[in-house]
């Protein structure tokens, strides 16, 4: 009851302040405070009905966002997105800290087998489905031959992609630790790495097929190599510097960590590096080369990152394009259903081939952690949309609708799987 009173007072205060009118350039903090408290209350409500808190944060953002109640106005939602760069770097850094080579080594071979089979099966099935259904899809229905093949391949790459962001956020939110969460996280990260490579190749083929670049032009491949190898190297160097700082100075670590995340996201962006990859590499280096005392850093960062995660997902909810769901909702539902089927089939095939070294329960439940889509998918979609105005924008609308669906379904399934494996609440034990 008191929580309800607090929520009503919060809504009233936010309404009064925003209706008085103020300085939009100073709205970030107001939006942050409002979103933080209200989304946390929504997350608590969802936890009571055994749903993931993240779904609550997203739903709160969606309801209070510009498309529905507009308590978070468009300028406020834009200001909130400033948190995104920092949040993505922080989330990826935490993901890197979760991937300990020594702990993963006993099941690394089977994990790679499972991942490759799952990815191959998903990709081939989705490619076949896209190719077969192409004339009925609202992109370039009249194309045929090689062009249809490469466009279907590009669409399959986008639809297959996963979300390391949501995966790590769910793990941090329910404080899960154990082989299942580690396996899913490693699968998602490795698969997305492979998908980024496949995406760049697909884009190059699409450009060739559409005659936008002459055959033999490898500029995109060079850019890809720079983005992937450069991001990993950049992150690794910064991770090593951070580890050195931790070991030799160890003062003002919060500020040093914030500075690391800012450099990873902002400087990385200027140099055309992928912040997610760079931050992941930084976390991997800190965890595997110069780990601080036990899990202290990991636990402390995960606890400290919680407010950032809450606001990140509330902002994501506020930025969801509901009109995309309205215009292309049925098609998105159909594609989501097909994707879910391919994940299950890929998981079944991968489980059979994973062999010794992989706990059968973990292997069989892996699919439940792979449904979410968010940042990586959106990033790839934006590239398609900006490079191919017209049909690229329609692909973008479909993908945004898919992300909206998967952002809600994914965390529910993943939390359910974590509960089944008994890993919830094991972090810090």
């Amino acid at each position, binding site marked *: 009851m*008191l*929580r309800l*009173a*607090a929520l009503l*007072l*919060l809504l009233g*205060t936010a309404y009064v*302040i*925003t209706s*008085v009118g*103020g*300085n939009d350039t*100073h*709205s*970030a*903090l*107001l*939006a*942050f*405070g*409002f979103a*933080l*408290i209200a989304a*946390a*209350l929504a997350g*608590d409500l969802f936890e009571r009905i055994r749903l993931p808190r993240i779904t609550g944060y997203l739903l709160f953002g969606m309801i209070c966002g510009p498309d529905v109640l507009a308590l978070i106005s468009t300028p406020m939602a834009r200001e909130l997105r*400033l948190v995104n760069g920092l949040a993505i770097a922080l989330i990826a850094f935490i993901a890197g800290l979760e991937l300990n080579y020594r702990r993963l080594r006993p099941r690394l071979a089977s994990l790679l087998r499972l991942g490759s089979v799952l990815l191959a099966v998903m990709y081939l099935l989705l490619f076949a489905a896209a190719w077969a259904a192409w004339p009925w899809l609202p992109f370039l229905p009249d194309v045929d031959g090689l062009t249809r093949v490469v466009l279907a391949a590009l669409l399959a790459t986008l639809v297959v992609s996963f979300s390391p962001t949501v995966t790590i956020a769910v793990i941090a939110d329910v404080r899960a630790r154990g082989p299942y969460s580690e396996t899913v996280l490693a699968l998602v990260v490795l698969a997305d790495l492979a998908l980024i490579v496949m995406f760049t190749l697909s884009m190059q083929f699409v450009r060739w097929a559409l005659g936008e670049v002459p055959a033999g032009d490898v500029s995109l491949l060079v850019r890809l190599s720079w983005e992937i190898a450069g991001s990993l190297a950049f992150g690794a160097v910064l991770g090593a510097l951070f580890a050195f700082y*931790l*070991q*030799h*100075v*160890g*003062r*003002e*670590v*919060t*500020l040093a*960590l*914030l500075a690391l995340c*800012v450099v990873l996201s*902002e400087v990385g962006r200027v140099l055309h590096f992928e912040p997610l990859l760079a931050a992941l590499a930084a976390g991997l280096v800190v965890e595997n080369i110069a780990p*601080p*005392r036990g899990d*202290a*850093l990991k*636990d*402390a*960062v995960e*606890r*400290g990152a*919680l*407010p950032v995660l*809450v606001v990140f997902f509330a902002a994501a909810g506020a930025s969801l394009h509901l009109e995309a769901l309205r215009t292309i909702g049925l098609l998105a539902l159909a594609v989501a259903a097909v994707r879910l089927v391919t994940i299950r089939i890929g998981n079944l095939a991968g489980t059979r081939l994973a062999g010794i070294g992989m706990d059968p329960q973990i292997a069989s439940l892996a699919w439940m952690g792979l449904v979410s889509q968010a940042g990586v998918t959106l990033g790839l979609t934006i590239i398609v949309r900006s490079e191919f105005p017209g049909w690229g924008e329609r692909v973008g609308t479909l993908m945004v609708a898919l992300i909206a669906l998967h952002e809600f379904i994914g965390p529910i399934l993943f939390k359910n799987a974590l509960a089944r494996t008994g890993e919830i609440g094991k972090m810090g034990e």
Partner: protein
Amino acid sequence: MNTGFDDSREIGGRDPLDARLTPPPSEPTPSDTWLRRVLRRLRMSAAFGLAPVLAPALVFVPLGALFGPQGLNLLSTRVLQHLDPVISLSLATLGVFVGLALGRRPSWNPRLFVAASIESGVTILVVSSALVFLVRAWDMPLAMPLAALALILGVSASASSATHDATPGSPDALAARIADLDDVLPIVVGALAIAAVGRPGLTSILWPAIATLGVGLAAGVIGWLLIERAHSDAERGIFVVGALALVAGGSAYLSLSPLLAGLAAGMFWNWSPGRCDTIVREDLGKFQHPVVVLMLLSAGALLEYSVMALWLFAPFVVFRLAGKLTGGWLASKLTPTLASADLSSHLLAPGLLGIAFALNAYQYLHSAEGIAALTAVVVGTLASEGVAFAVAPGEADA
């Protein structure tokens, strides 16, 4: 390097991650690296009085200047714009701690509060009047009301820090308590001064001040309803940070003073039933350190040296000293257990609130006067720290 500020009220305890990752500075471990051993040795030296105990402003402001646009440009103008919400957040944090420092009713001593307000009021009056007189005499061209500029500098000069842990009831403890309480009046006057810029008439100045208190109280009530009833430490932390962001964000959005809004919220938590004040003090203490350090780094990075700043700096330091000595003398008349010299020497160290006031004014005055006032206050604060270090009682005396 001992910065000597780990337990200061203004900058909080140790950084939360430092505290989890490394043992306290006084506890050496076999795994210490050479660099840590050097740093530890410096800390030990400081503890024995062989090295100066530095105020936080003396460490982080020069670092900010080094990293800022005039230096290495790591804290570029764009980064500083992104740090603006952090400045509001740190101002609100400082305001909350001033509110919490007022103490609960049983320990509330109106006589001390009046003495502290007289002391800070006299300093504001001395510095502001002197600046009005001097700026007029120098015929300095200004694009903003002279009274507002003088008041901003006067308010920034009136802050004192109290960091000595003294025996309760001793004269030192009383002096430290006065230094705690003397921040309230400047926060209120500073908020009115900020409201006065660009707003003609008394009513149009009072309404923003009332709105600021309203924002602080509303956030205070929301925090009070949630904080004590949180289901976990993590959730409690979210509510504390959320309430603080609401205090800072609401007031910044309305171009008001986060310091005053924070003071209102802190006072509400202090005097409301339950343990809200204790919880907020504990949780905010972990969060306080990094945001206040960022505020100091930003202040250092924003410095721009100009003739106007130089002209404002010298009277700021000199008349602050005069104001503190006069104010301390007057306040000691109300506190018979304190000799005026003792009290004044405790009030000389400016701490961080002066910089906070100047930053708050700068947030809404992106003019030559605003930047000159900020530079004069920040450099003047560093100089005043030097004066305080030379004059203030040492640890052995305290």
